[in-house]
């Protein structure tokens, strides 16, 4: 991991959290569908990052989000779950030794792999997030509906951002 990767990731962290906190926080469709673009940061962290470091980064990211959302612990737990799914999915779908790409982005891994990866990670993240927020199973259909609609919205924004970056890189 060279210093360029670290710088790029720090820049990405700041940019994504800035967009999330100051723009997307105020955005929701009928209070049902909310995009959480910041998960993209954890999604595209380098492949060879140690597990502990990944968890620590996810923890700090979630904690930062929580301080701005005033929901201390909710985003943190969701990010930890996201990190766990990321590790599982990568270890199941890819041979870790044979990976020659630096990070699991859309441009590097192709649309099919990346979209499946993003859908799974975002889904788990949102399930944890919304159920911790509701903290009960009585309004199950409402919470599930919110989760699924938000997954669609988040996935859309994530793919959009990835396409823009991808094109810029290749250009």
């Amino acid at each position, binding site marked *: 991991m060279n210093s360029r990767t670290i710088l790029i990731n720090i820049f990405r962290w700041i940019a994504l959290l800035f967009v999330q906190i100051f723009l997307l926080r105020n955005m929701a469709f009928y209070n049902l569908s909310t995009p959480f673009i910041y998960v993209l940061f954890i999604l595209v962290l380098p492949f060879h990052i140690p597990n502990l470091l990944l968890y620590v980064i996810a923890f700090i990211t979630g904690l930062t989000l929580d301080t701005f959302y005033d929901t*201390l*612990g*909710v985003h*943190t*737990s969701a990010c*930890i779950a996201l*990190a766990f799914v990321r*590790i599982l999915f990568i270890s199941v779908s890819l041979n870790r030794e044979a990976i020659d790409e630096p990070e699991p982005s859309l441009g590097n891994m192709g649309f099919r792999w990346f979209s499946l990866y993003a859908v799974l990670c975002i889904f788990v993240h949102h399930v944890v997030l919304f159920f911790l927020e509701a903290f009960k199973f009585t309004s199950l259909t409402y919470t599930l509906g919110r989760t699924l609609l938000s997954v669609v919205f988040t996935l859309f924004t994530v793919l959009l951002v990835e396409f823009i970056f991808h094109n810029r890189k290749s250009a």
Partner: protein
Amino acid sequence: MRNLWIFLSRYNAFFFFIIFFTVGIILTIRNNVYQRSVTFSSTNEIVGTAYKRLNVVKRYLNLVQVNDSLAAENAALKTQLLAINAIDSTQVTKVKDTINHQQYTLISAKVFKNSVTLTNNMITINKGIKDGIMKDMAVISPGKGVVGFVQNVSENFATIRPLLNQETAISVVLKKDNAFGSLVWGDDNFDYRKAYVKEIPNHYKVKVGDTIITSGSGGFPRGIEVGRVTNTSVSTGDSFMTLEVTLFNNFSTLQFVYVVKDKFAEEVKSLQTEVKNEQ
């Protein structure tokens, strides 16, 4: 030990996940008012449910004493209430006769046997001559509503001829304009929630929803709310109206009744028989 270490490091992702996720959940519960309240209240609910189960048994064992004390208390309170209502303001007396103001006293009694499905229903209660109950005393139900009259009395028990009996007629008035009528049951109507008010002259304007109260004669204190008019167009063919009334009290769940002891009942009765004899 080495194997354990290998095991831990192989599945480190999972163990890290457990540790960090637990920290996240703890943070959530400790720092968010709503989530904390839900957690504590659901744990409290488990403890509370256990205690509640226990309490149900305890309360059931004490039920007899509680019921008796409540019934006695109600009787005392109702007696006081009637004393306030029964003060005769037209009577001008120099001597303040506080005893005479108390025209009605109530005796609480428990219903032993009750029926609502027969043509002529009867109620048996657990108070009798020993408790001061006499024939033809009026009986009212707790809350709102009338029950009937005492039919027969023995040493410890009494039977009541309730409204749900073709023999029973109770003198009632319309609350808003004092039109007299008599409350009866029977005649094709065997619904214990309904009764009829008969003999109200046709010129009175009665609307659905008007309240029917007792008239004050026949042993009942005046002003006991009996029921609400639900149908004014019951045709009978004579020059009187018949109103369908939905009763306030439910005869099928009657557990306690109050027997009304009228201080002047004997006096009124002897006076009326005297008039009859002279005729």
